[in-house]
């Protein structure tokens, strides 16, 4: 893909998107009634209004039908302006959700060759009764019949005959025998896309293996190579696996987001039904947070943290492998519902008691089980990283000489580790409620739905900081290296991150402002939520100050960092509107919220990690990424991203609420969203396609350079931390355990001795004097 052809291809995707989104229009033809959405919008029969004086009736249908049997059906009507002796008496349209119609004479016809829709013919509009045959479907699904009849006041032609009246009748015929077939069409689309992505992933894997050594491309060589990947406990290999998983699910979550945007492009759209829509937004949230963002972070943490602190590997390499392998299996569990049409439909927050009622899909149990495995995975990761950072720092590296990315991972893991057990317990409660029938959230037995909200948000709010804080670390590294300066205010950066970590535990109440908390608690949470702005502000100003007096080298990762600063600041500012109650009671659960958290999660986390990809990819693979493609990626993605999320703010303020598969535009009968909201939604949907497409540029860039990229030197950007000391890619073990690197310090620091807390922890651990330290 060259620079010139890329915009053309993007335009093509946008045009395709437009083509799919064109609204179906109603057709009305002489000699018949019909139209693509007659069932939904009502009859346009001669442009007149429905009237209850017309009685439509349909006879000959059984209460429940036998499979594949044929029934004689009589359609008739009475009342209305139709009088005997006139030429034109009336017409009808009969639509069935399943089965096939056959006509018995020339008074009726199949409507536009649809075997499930039948209407009168030109010669058939002289009568009030029509005879038809209907053959039941082969499966036992319930069949809905919708009948429209038109009572015509005489021979006055088809258009504008004011006295005509029509009415509608609905009949449902029960099917029995075979169980109803689940409707899985949108899921087939998703499943197909997932399978295609999986196949493409395997092809890429095979291709990479082939490129390694084209002569040895056979099973004897492939089996040990792939089993090395499946069993490896090397932090770099596991990091790569996380990375592949994260990018894969970023794509899957993106596809789901596109389906959501397709549905919302026009009001009242029926691209996917509400049933599917609900599952898509649930899985979009779960996938993006747990299966895309967290693995991407874990991938970079795995790769970079041991390298930055000068450790040969993590403290518990096999636990690390366990952390990873829990994730793809959990992903399978979370997605099991999707492939059977019974995916979780509770929203990623899974509010009780809806989550434990039987009106949800059966996939919710598996969704909870899968997330339970992710909780286990995160807990193991937390143990591993906290221990590693506490005990495996290279000689000379005190706490306050750790690189900021390592610090951010430390803070993030501490937050995650202390909050995720609450979520795990909540999930166990939901899982048990849904399986063995415990009563944690059974309202009739005294269960309290708010308990789930507390357990969830006690985890959920630190979780969003867990996702954003590592991005802070990346930005701190990249902006200092790019500006050719050391970071401004290293210590205040660390304290700010620790402050965010502390505050994160006491702000979660703002998610529950409108659920009946006491005014005192509301005020307290309002204050603490506002407090988050202080450490975040310190970080932003420190980054800006770091550039002062520097010499900013414009690489792709620099561009992403500056992009991050723009979007994250905007997201931070919009976040300040929520703690204010009088604003929040209007903005809560609207698109303003959606815009805000996409500005911080996409504009923050994802942009931060795009910067990280461009920054550390040479270190990880030994190949430089293509800068021209990188710049193209940044420009297209940054513009389409802002066109995608910025309009959502305004939509939220005028009252468009989230998590609905359709929305109402003001008509003559009622006031709802203003008319421009429909156009804005269309704009958002088109931008969503562009944003998705622009990120494919990066994937292409990564694969292309991996195969035939320029070789990377050990320190391509001029950073100071240990990872730039080893070769690109680093050897295994990353540092020789018998000869660890030693960190020097350009400042005059006192020798590293444990502080007050360090002493305390030491005493707690009981140093073992009988064992000889080190290896033998």
């Amino acid at each position, binding site marked *: 893909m060259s620079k010139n052809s890329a915009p053309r291809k993007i335009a093509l995707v946008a045009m395709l998107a437009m083509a799919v989104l064109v609204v179906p229009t109603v057709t009305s033809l002489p000699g018949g009634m019909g139209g693509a959405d007659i069932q939904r919008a009502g009859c346009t029969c001669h442009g007149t209004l429905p009237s209850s004086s017309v009685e439509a009736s349909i006879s000959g249908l059984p209460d429940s039908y036998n499979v594949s049997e044929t029934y004689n059906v009589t359609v008739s009507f009475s009342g209305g302006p139709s009088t005997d002796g006139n030429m034109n008496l009336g017409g009808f349209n009969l639509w069935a959700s399943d089965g096939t119609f056959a006509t018995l004479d020339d008074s009726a016809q199949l409507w536009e060759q649809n075997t499930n829709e039948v209407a009168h013919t030109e010669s058939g509009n002289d009568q009030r009764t029509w005879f038809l045959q209907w053959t039941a479907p082969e499966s036992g699904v319930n069949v809905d019949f919708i009948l429209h009849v038109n009572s015509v006041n005489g021979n006055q032609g088809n258009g504008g005959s004011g006295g005509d009246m029509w009415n509608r009748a609905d009949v449902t015929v029960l099917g029995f025998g075979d169980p109803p077939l689940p409707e899985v069409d949108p899921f087939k689309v998703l499943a197909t896309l997932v399978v295609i992505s999986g196949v493409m992933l395997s092809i890429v894997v095979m291709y990479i293996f082939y490129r390694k050594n084209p002569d040895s491309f056979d099973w004897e060589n492939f089996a040990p190579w792939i089993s090395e990947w499946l069993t490896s406990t090397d932090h770099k290999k596991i990091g790569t696996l996380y990375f592949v998983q994260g990018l894969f699910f970023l794509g899957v979550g993106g596809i789901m987001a596109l389906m959501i945007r397709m549905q919302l492009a026009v009001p009242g759209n029926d691209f996917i039904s*509400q049933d599917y829509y609900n599952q898509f937004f649930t899985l979009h949230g779960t996938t993006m947070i747990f299966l895309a963002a967290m693995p991407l972070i874990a991938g970079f943490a795995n790769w970079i943290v041991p390298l930055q602190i000068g450790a040969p590997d993590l403290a518990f390499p096999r636990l690390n492998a366990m952390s990873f392998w829990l994730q793809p299996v959990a992903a399978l569990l979370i997605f099991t519902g999707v492939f059977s049409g019974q995916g979780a439909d509770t929203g990623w927050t899974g509010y009780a008691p809806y989550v434990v009622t039987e009106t949800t899909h059966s996939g919710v149990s598996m969704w909870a089980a899968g997330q339970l495995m992710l909780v286990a995975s995160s807990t193991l990761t937390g143990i591993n990283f906290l221990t590693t950072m506490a005990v495996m720092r290279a000689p000379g590296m005190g706490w306050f000489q750790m690189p900021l990315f390592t610090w951010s991972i430390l803070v993030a893991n501490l937050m995650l580790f202390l909050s995720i057990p609450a979520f795990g317990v909540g999930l166990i409660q939901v899982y048990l409620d849904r399986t063995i029938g415990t009563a944690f959230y059974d309202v009739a037995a005294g269960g309290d739905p708010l308990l789930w909200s507390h357990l969830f948000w006690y985890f959920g709010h630190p979780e969003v900081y867990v996702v954003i804080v590592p991005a802070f670390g990346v930005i701190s590294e990249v902006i200092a290296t790019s500006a050719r300066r050391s970071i401004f205010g290293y210590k205040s950066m660390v304290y700010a991150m620790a402050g965010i970590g502390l505050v994160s535990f006491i702000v979660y109440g703002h998610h529950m402002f409108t659920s009946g908390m006491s005014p005192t608690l509301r005020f307290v949470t309002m204050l603490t939520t506002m407090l988050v702005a202080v450490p975040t502000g310190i970080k932003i100003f420190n980054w800006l100050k770091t550039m002062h007096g520097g010499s900013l080298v414009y690489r792709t990762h620099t561009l992403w960092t500056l992009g991050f600063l723009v979007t994250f600041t905007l997201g931070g500012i919009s976040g300040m509107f929520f703690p204010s109650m*009088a604003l929040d009671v209007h903005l809560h659960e609207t698109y303003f919220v959606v815009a805000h958290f996409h500005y911080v999660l996409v504009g923050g986390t994802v942009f931060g990690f795009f910067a990280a990809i461009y920054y550390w990819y040479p270190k990880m693979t030994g190949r430089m990424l293509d800068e021209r493609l990188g710049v193209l990626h940044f420009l297209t993605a940054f513009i389409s991203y802002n066109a995608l999320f910025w309009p959502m703010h305004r939509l939220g303020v005028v009252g468009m609420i989230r998590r609905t598969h359709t929305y109402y535009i003001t008509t003559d009968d009622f006031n709802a969203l203003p008319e421009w909201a429909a156009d804005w939604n269309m704009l958002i949907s088109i931008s969503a396609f562009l944003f998705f497409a622009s990120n494919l540029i990066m994937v292409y860039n990564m694969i292309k350079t991996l195969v035939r990229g320029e070789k990377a030197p050990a*320190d391509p950007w001029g950073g100071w931390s240990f990872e730039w000391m080893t070769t690109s890619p680093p050897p295994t073990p990353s540092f020789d355990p018998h000869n660890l690197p030693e960190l020097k310090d350009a400042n005059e620091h006192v020798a590293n001795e444990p502080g007050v807390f360090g002493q305390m922890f030491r005493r707690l651990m009981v140093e073992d004097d009988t064992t000889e330290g080190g290896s033998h």
Partner: protein
Amino acid sequence: MAGITPLFDAIWDDYMFWSLVVGAISFGWLYHHSYFYRSEEGESPNIDKIEVGVFPKEYDNLKLEVTWTVIPFILIVWLTYISWAPLDAVWSQTGPDGYHGSECENGESSNNYIDPSGYVRSDCYHDIGIEGQQWFWEFDCYDLVDELCSIDYAAVEGELKPHLMLKAGETYLATMTSIDVTHAVKNPDFGMMEDIVPGQVTYLWMPAVGETSFLMLCAEYCGDNHAYMIAQITVE
């Protein structure tokens, strides 16, 4: 941003002002530095003598750091202060200390009005009931006369939805319950929403000041037909 409620608009304008100030400072700073301190083609000076394996020389300035800790802190204290007062108005208590007095006697009118700071004040209020259920609303006027509160059905895009008619100038307190899962009443024109949690009773003020008509929505996801869980409210 005009047109939600006077209170919302007033606070929104304050917040927008400060957002613009913060945005102008940050972005002005960002654009200046990213242009002014860019490196020329091929030039890559090592300003702080960064070296691999050496913790770089610390670059900080305590006064500056304290400045941008304290100034944002003062700003958020101010923002908290202006957001604090509406707390009582939004979730006003009933009785003489509240904004809406006690429940109206028979035939008494609320006579509500918007005071200069944007709060709605009334002499008294009327009780109504809202019950949520998957996936429709049910209103209850209790013993209010038809003029104050009446219920029928209205077609919204071809489907019949509950229609609640209230009187302008009256203030209503909705007592809300749910019989299955959590829902939330969102009245866009009153600028208010509140959850309805099963097993609990929650309350929501509906100060009908001027004539309006809007769709009341369910704002807490509640299952399949969540989007269709709407009702029409007319204030005349």
